[in-house]
């Protein structure tokens, strides 16, 4: 049975449909990340669950009980905010203790619980510091301890790491996941950082324009995007608009080049499709003679060193392709080098496009 359910949630702000009928079902102790660009409705959904806003339509259920009409102080939802939200007039200890005082817990119980939680977030030594004496990362840890202190039914995290620097962000997201698993608390996490979402979640829901485009495990989202938008948003993807020319042999055509793609078999001839190839799946080598089957011939446009890999951008007859490879291999293919980019027949995905529909959604013009 689902522990947390969001059923057909709608929320309009004037003419803007912030949420247009979202459904989420989450088991007890599971971690779901809501991922999407700014304005997609993910924070609105979280605020509806927290009770800071009311849905125009739809219901929110926890353990089968409708909580849509409850005010936020009656919902037992622990929340960590994007902005630093510690009470400036209270020490870290007093902040964590606040919710327990509201609940009139015994002083001894309060003290023990606060000590445990501050140790859990690694701040036992800083309990008497005021918020302005703590770094951003420490403040968010205290905020997490404060949210957990009340033993919430659901933990809500609204981009809690977005104000922190990159290294602290990675450290803290791992700690959030460790604590969530340790306590087995059902968690809703809002982020626009896909790497963050993929790294710590049991499930990821990608949202766009107030609807959930796709929901699944991180691996499913990465390897089998269900819509062009998800393909664009999760990771980096080569996206080529093509047409099925022979469904028997699995042949598609893009910009006059024919490619053999396993996934095209059984599709309708003439069908418009989106060919998806991850940069790490695209094979790139120096051109010695002709291109050969399933390949594009072009030249290296740019090289970007990303640490573990080097990203190479190739221009081939009006098509821009990107591929990731080791720095050593990339060194052999300098900018301007003539190269062949080979599309693997068994490692490319296809998505159907409407025959007379619009072009591809573009989120990042640098990311073809």
């Amino acid at each position, binding site marked *: 049975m689902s522990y947390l359910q969001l059923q057909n949630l709608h929320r309009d702000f004037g003419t803007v449909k912030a949420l247009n009928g979202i459904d989420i079902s989450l088991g007890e102790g599971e971690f779901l990340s809501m991922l999407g660009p700014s304005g997609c409705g993910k924070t609105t959904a979280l605020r509806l669950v927290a009770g800071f806003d009311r849905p125009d339509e739809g219901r929110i259920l926890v353990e089968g009980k409708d909580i849509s009409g409850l005010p936020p102080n009656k919902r037992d939802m622990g929340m960590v905010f994007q902005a630093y939200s510690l009470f400036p*007039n209270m020490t870290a200890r007093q902040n964590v203790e606040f919710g327990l005082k509201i609940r009139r817990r015994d002083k001894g119980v309060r003290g023990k619980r606060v000590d445990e939680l501050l140790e859990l977030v690694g701040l036992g030594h800083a309990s008497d510091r005021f918020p302005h004496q703590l770094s951003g990362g420490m403040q968010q840890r205290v905020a997490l301890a*404060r949210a957990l202190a009340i033993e919430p039914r659901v933990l809500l995290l609204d981009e809690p790491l977005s104000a922190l620097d990159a290294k602290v962000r990675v450290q803290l997201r791992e700690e959030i996941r460790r604590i969530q698993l340790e306590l087995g608390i059902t968690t809703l996490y809002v982020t626009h950082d896909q790497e963050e979402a993929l790294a710590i979640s049991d499930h990821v829901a990608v949202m766009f324009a107030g609807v959930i485009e796709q929901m699944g495990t991180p691996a499913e989202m990465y390897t089998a995007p269900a819509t062009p938008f998800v393909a664009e948003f999760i990771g980096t993807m080569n996206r080529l608009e093509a047409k099925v020319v022979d469904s028997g042999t699995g042949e598609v055509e893009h910009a006059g080049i024919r490619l053999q793609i396993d996934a095209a078999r059984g599709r309708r001839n003439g069908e418009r499709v989106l060919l998806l190839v991850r940069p790490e799946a695209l094979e790139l080598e120096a051109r010695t003679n002709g291109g050969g089957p399933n390949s594009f011939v072009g030249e290296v446009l740019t090289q970007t060193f990303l640490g573990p890999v080097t990203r190479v951008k190739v221009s081939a007859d009006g098509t821009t392709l990107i591929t990731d490879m080791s720095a050593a291999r990339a060194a052999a293919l300098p900018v301007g080098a003539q190269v062949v980019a080979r599309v693997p027949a068994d490692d490319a995905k296809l998505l159907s496009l409407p025959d007379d529909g619009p072009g591809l959604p573009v989120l990042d013009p640098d990311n073809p």
Partner: protein
Amino acid sequence: MKHRRHIAPSAVVWLLIGGLYFTIPLIATFDISLKSPQTGKCCTTANYSWVLHNGDFWHTLKISFMLAVETVIIALLLFVPTIYWVHLKIPRLRPVIAFLALIPFVVPPIVMVVGLLKVFKGTPAWFYQQPWGFLAASYVILAFPYMFFSLDAGFRSIDVHTLTEASQSLGARWTTTLWRVILPNIKAAALAGSFLTLAIVMGEFTIANLAAFHTFPIFIQYVNESQGFPAGALTLMSFAITWVAMLSLLVFGRRKGGGPGGIAGMRR
């Protein structure tokens, strides 16, 4: 190597002129206050003794002080929740309230008092004829701009939305949130508004005089007209009262927690 700070000579001159502008009247008043009422010669504490032994001094001082405290309490009870609500729920109303807050500055006191006397004319005697009723109500109106702009600055310096939502998510009702989370963080602003209100009420003359109430400023004016040398002592003593109030603000307004720059809950 440390750089020594140099103060420009012109700055020293201006500081000196400014200092003299404020201190010369005080020195002159102090000089007058030490002169004997009989001989007109220096130096005696008789004027201070006269003031301290004058029943009207204590009576009017008590009335004005109680009025000031009453005004501060009413103004805080009225304006803190209102301004909190405006910041939280209807921020677009803030400019309207800021405009309304300017009205007591713009309308001359004489016009205001005539209007207030007309407005409150039909009210019961316990209100209309008592300083605790009519005068306090009028002073709350006078205090509006001072309270509003002080509190508004306080509310703008913290993230009211996030702090309120954080408190609510932990189970607090809005009254608890206001009392335990918001108020402690706007304490300095509330104290500043309270002090300004206190100073205004302690020195307000026009309304009290035209409405025929006997308050401390009325007493000062009466002594000033009738007895020159004790008036000097009285002026300095009222000045001292103002300073004591200001020091109280500094002592009570010192924040225990929080701090400048990067403070949690502050707007970024």
